[in-house]
């Protein structure tokens, strides 16, 4: 968040002239809650991977649930709701984590 441009550095009218730059738009800053996974309970069913609206939960090469990309996780808690073994808990995100 510290690299925000000033009005003079920005293109006129908010035009984005760098293609494929939507990855730079880090929606993780919107987050109030963060998902915390209890690794001992996870059965790697990948329901959270499929249902994540941001597609920010990785799937590993050996077809296991990977890490959550916190740059884009908005803390919507869909993963927590769909988890069949209830191993994802939503916790309040502190400001430090959010950055």
């Amino acid at each position, binding site marked *: 968040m510290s690299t925000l441009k000033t*009005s003079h550095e920005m293109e*006129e*009218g*908010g*035009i984005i*002239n*760098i293609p494929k730059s939507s990855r730079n738009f880090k929606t993780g800053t919107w987050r109030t809650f963060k998902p915390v996974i209890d690794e001992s309970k996870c059965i790697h069913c990948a329901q959270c991977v499929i249902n994540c609206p941001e597609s920010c939960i990785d799937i590993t090469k050996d077809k296991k649930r990977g890490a959550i990309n916190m740059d884009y996780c908005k803390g919507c808690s869909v993963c927590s709701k769909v988890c069949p073994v209830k191993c994802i808990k939503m916790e309040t995100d502190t400001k430090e984590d959010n950055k």
Partner: protein
Amino acid sequence: MSKITLALTGAHAVAEAMRQINPGVVALFPITPQTPIVEKYSEYYANGVVDTELVRSESEHSAMSIVMGAQAAGVRAMTATSSQGLAYMWEVVGATAGLRLPIVMPVTNRALGAPINIHCDHADSMYCRDLGWIHLFCETAQEAYENTLLAIRLAEKVSLPVMVLQDGFITSHSVERVDILDDVSAKKFIGEYKPNNPLINTDYPKTVGPIQLQDYYFETQYQGTIAIESVFEEYLKIGKELEKLTGTKYELFEEYKLEDAEVAIIVSSSTSGTTKEVIDRMRNEGKKVGLLNIKLYRPFPYEAIAKALNHFNLNNIAVLDRALSRGAMPPLYTDIKLSVSSLNKIPKIQSYVFGLGGRDIIQKDIEEVFESLLKGKVKENKTEYIGLRK
């Protein structure tokens, strides 16, 4: 360079300017009293005089959306509207300013409903005054023609849209003598359009109109604010260039016998003409009356107006608004009041509202305003209504 003198209405004078501009896209939708502008332009199109892509839209909201898209794509795009039409396109009008698209739109000022009314007042454009568009009021058909040409250059210089405002029916439908520039000179003045950031450029793909939230929206709004503040300088610069062709002086506002005036009226558009007639007559009777004719309304030239009103003799001023701001003082009055607040000797200012829904304002009315100013009848922060049956 040669001039062609024609008998034209204000609407047809603007259509003449549009013919010389020959925009890539014109989206049209009829609305009284703007209709003759797009009607005449359609005639040029049908006769092959212009090579515009003419789009008959199903509403003003669509017309402005089409123009916004076309201008973003990278061509000059125009539409014209009035009153309810302007209100209907309001959402997109704001968006074009936010996207910094240099669209020029002639507007014939007309009252807003309800009650429904087709005649002139300034409510329609006044309710758009905070949207980031440049507002240019025109007194005559001649001025409407010249300002439309000037507006193209100004819009493209500062990347902001411009409304060229003339009084509905009074100017738009009255035939006047209009000097039109020859096509070669006009086209040379207008020049070729070089868009800043055209959407249709496959070498440099880009996104127009992305979402901006808490982190960037504020900065983009500020960009527009900085841009509109540069208009004063650019308007005068481009005006100087056009002056060489037309012989007209382009000032931020017109001062008419204001220099030694003891009392003055401040008003815009066609009523300025009526006021000048009255001033000439009253001056012959030895009464020191003057006029400040508002032309560039947004951005508002607070400092320049304060300078013009800063002289020892000027005691009383009347600001004539052709629009209300219900529950508050009228818009032009408020702006003038703020302008003079920095002066050492602040003249007294009487607010008047006149001509709503096209109610006639005649020389006698103006004379009465001057007479009452000369008698010192000024109630600050209280609006008087000219010709109203209370």
